[in-house]
């Protein structure tokens, strides 16, 4: 005799949940794929600061003018991802009118480079904005 709960469980297990949005994989790649590169940037920063401190100390002790080792970053690349627009179900507002919520997500990425040390600094900024589009009803 078959267990009806077990049959139902097997049927449930055949359902295929929807995969996460592609943006999730892209974000995971940013988080999980390049830890060593990010560490390299931090090390380069630390190395630059150490060199600047050493130059300053040498300058003070030897009476020479300190060498300017402050990183001088220049913008080398700016990117904006395509906007991911979610048009959501209309809602009724407190004043009785209707509006459709719209959520927009996009990323801004800028890359800065110090040409002397070839150190690169990446500024990644995800953005999200939600707005209500008024709907006219007749």
């Amino acid at each position, binding site marked *: 005799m078959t267990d009806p*709960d077990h049959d139902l469980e097997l049927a449930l297990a055949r359902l295929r949940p*929807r*995969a*996460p*949005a592609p943006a999730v994989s892209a974000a995971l790649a940013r988080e*999980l794929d390049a830890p060593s590169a990010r560490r390299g940037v931090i090390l380069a920063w630390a190395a630059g600061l150490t060199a600047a401190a050493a130059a300053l100390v040498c300058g003070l002790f030897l009476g020479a003018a300190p060498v300017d080792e402050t990183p001088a970053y220049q913008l080398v690349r700016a990117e904006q991802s395509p906007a991911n627009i979610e048009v959501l179900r209309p809602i009724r507002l407190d004043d009785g009118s209707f509006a459709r919520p719209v959520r927009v997500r996009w990323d801004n990425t800028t890359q800065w480079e110090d040409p002397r040390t070839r150190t690169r600094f990446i500024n990644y900024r995800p953005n999200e904005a939600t707005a209500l589009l008024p709907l006219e009803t007749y």
Partner: protein
Amino acid sequence: MPDAHADQDWRAWFAEHGARLRLIARQWTRSEADADDVVQEAFVRFWKHQRHLPGDPNALVVTSIRRAALDLLRRTDRRGVREQAVAADTETVAWFEPEADPRLQALARSLPLLPPEQREVVVLKVWGGLTFDQVGGQLEISPNTAASRWRYAMEALRKLITARAHD
């Protein structure tokens, strides 16, 4: 589940399990977008810090998802009332891929109609691969209560499917 303890590529692991992790996250979030955010945050935490821990990786990643979801709920509770109302009212996307089998279609449409406390037990058992002991541990209820909610859920699902068959 493949061995997450080994030095496996996260892409392969996520490709195989991302969808069911998202369904689990969806049980404790207000929208599809929130579920994606929770999966992302929980998976990064799991992969970077927890996958080498002893124990069942399945239970570890579910714990990570639940913690991230509860954190997000606490954060969003501080937002405006209108935004909460919008988020609660904007569910437009199905949880499952389309199915040709009418019985599976009915099941896919019926599952979201279960009471949340029954639905989370079903999702954790079927797609989380957890035992009633583990489900109880996740939800802070006894294994007997988890099993009882499972039985109620199965009964409710049977009724919902039968009702849909007669529609």
